[in-house]
């Protein structure tokens, strides 16, 4: 097929929405559900590593980025490496969840999910893995519950020093900001506001992506990847207002990094985290820039606190060719070093 014909075909597909990519296609089963928490277990015929790996995703976007497309899926790579993979996901917040607080995650949802993961996998421990705000939840849980049955903790692109967060830090500290102005009638930050705040990080990001798309309209792989990524980036989720207020204190006012943040009345000290830890930093991350995340390895009390600094963007850590060839193998290598080989079995 000629270049012009391919471009025309792709233009029609984009305009009409036909052949839209199906995100998050790796087969999985719902293990447990409570409130807006959902624990999923990905099917595998060859689990050859224990303990199970529990992924904790962010609160403000869809977890499908971890399993974006066949051949470009973090979950697929973990399954291929023999891990028994579980995902703690959160349904979008509605009026019932406006009062949800970070301690609900650290003290209730994560302990429940860890317990359910252990039961389902028949394991004594889990390896906890948090991405972005999911990493913040994992840190809060591990610091507030140092006796939690964790083999290791991995935090990927996880913010801790929000005062370095550019526009968001300026906005959070601006005397003009009234946090209530970000909330909808339900008391949540609506998805469109979350989306708008992300767009501000790269005001011409969409224009740039559209220009590149036009230029590469005849490239089927690029168009497919663009559609999948756009489907994900345009799909943020509503977020509880109470949690926003807490995160502003914890991150934007550096309370978590400086040991001044309180959860359920207890002061949270990241030095109480003692399990082996890996921090993964994306050096070209415009969403969680390096200065916002880089300090984490030195804040925890783990005897073994490793760091992976990768030449990737926030999403590029888990999606794309660099992710498949560089990022994922190095993360998997760390996890393997802290796991035990077992006879292959089905999950």
């Amino acid at each position, binding site marked *: 097929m000629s270049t012009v014909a391919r471009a025309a075909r792709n233009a029609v597909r984009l305009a009409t929405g036909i052949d839209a990519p199906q995100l998050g296609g790796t087969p999985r089963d719902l293990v447990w559900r409570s409130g807006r928490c959902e624990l999923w277990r990905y099917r595998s015929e060859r689990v050859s590593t224990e303990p199970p790996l529990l992924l904790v995703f962010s609160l403000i976007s869809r977890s499908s980025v971890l399993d974006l497309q066949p051949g470009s899926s973090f979950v697929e790579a973990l399954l291929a490496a023999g891990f028994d993979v579980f995902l703690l996901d959160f349904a979008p917040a*509605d009026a019932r969840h406006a009062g949800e607080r970070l301690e*609900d995650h650290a003290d209730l949802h994560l302990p429940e999910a860890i317990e359910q993961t252990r039961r389902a996998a028949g394991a004594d421990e889990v390896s906890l893995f948090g991405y972005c705000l999911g990493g913040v939840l994992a840190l809060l849980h591990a610091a507030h519950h140092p006796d939690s049955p964790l083999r290791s903790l991995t935090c990927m692109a996880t913010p801790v020093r929000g005062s370095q967060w*550019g526009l968001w830090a300026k*906005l959070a500290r601006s005397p003009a*900001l009234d946090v209530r102005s970000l909330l909808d009638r339900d008391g949540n930050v609506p998805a469109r506001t979350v989306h708008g705040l992300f767009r501000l990080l790269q*005001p011409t990001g969409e224009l*740039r992506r559209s220009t590149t798309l036009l230029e590469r309209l005849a490239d089927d792989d690029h168009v497919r990847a663009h559609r999948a990524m756009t489907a994900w980036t345009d799909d943020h989720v509503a977020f509880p207002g109470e949690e926003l207020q807490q995160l502003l204190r914890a991150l934007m006012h550096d309370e978590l990094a400086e040991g001044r943040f309180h959860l359920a009345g207890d002061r949270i000290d990241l030095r109480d985290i003692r399990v082996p830890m890996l921090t993964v930093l994306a050096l070209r991350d415009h969403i969680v820039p390096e200065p916002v995340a880089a300090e984490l390895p030195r804040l925890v009390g783990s005897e073994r606190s490793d760091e992976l600094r990768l030449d990737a963007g926030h999403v590029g850590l888990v999606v794309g060719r660099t992710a498949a060839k560089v990022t994922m193998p190095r993360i998997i290598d760390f996890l393997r070093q802290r796991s035990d080989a077992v006879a292959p079995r089905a999950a």
Partner: protein
Amino acid sequence: MATLSPLWRAVHLAERTVGDRLDGVVRTDAFALALGVGLRAQAEAQRHVERASRRALHLLNLPAAGDVAALRRQLGDLDRELRAVRLELELERDGREEEAA
């Protein structure tokens, strides 16, 4: 990498020029201040409309959307409390079973 045509080079150059300038603007304190003020004004306007519609609905003895949202929020709070109690009981039971074993 294939050589870009002059047209695409020009497009990318224009996009980079505009983009870099816009990036510079949104990183300023003035922009953050203006954004905060704008958000506050928008929220106040919305609250004004909602207050008016709530008064009208209450006159007819009907619940406003905010009333329903408040009730749903209470339900959510109650649900979380119950789950916390259930988790505590389960952990206690597991602890007793381990001791007995």
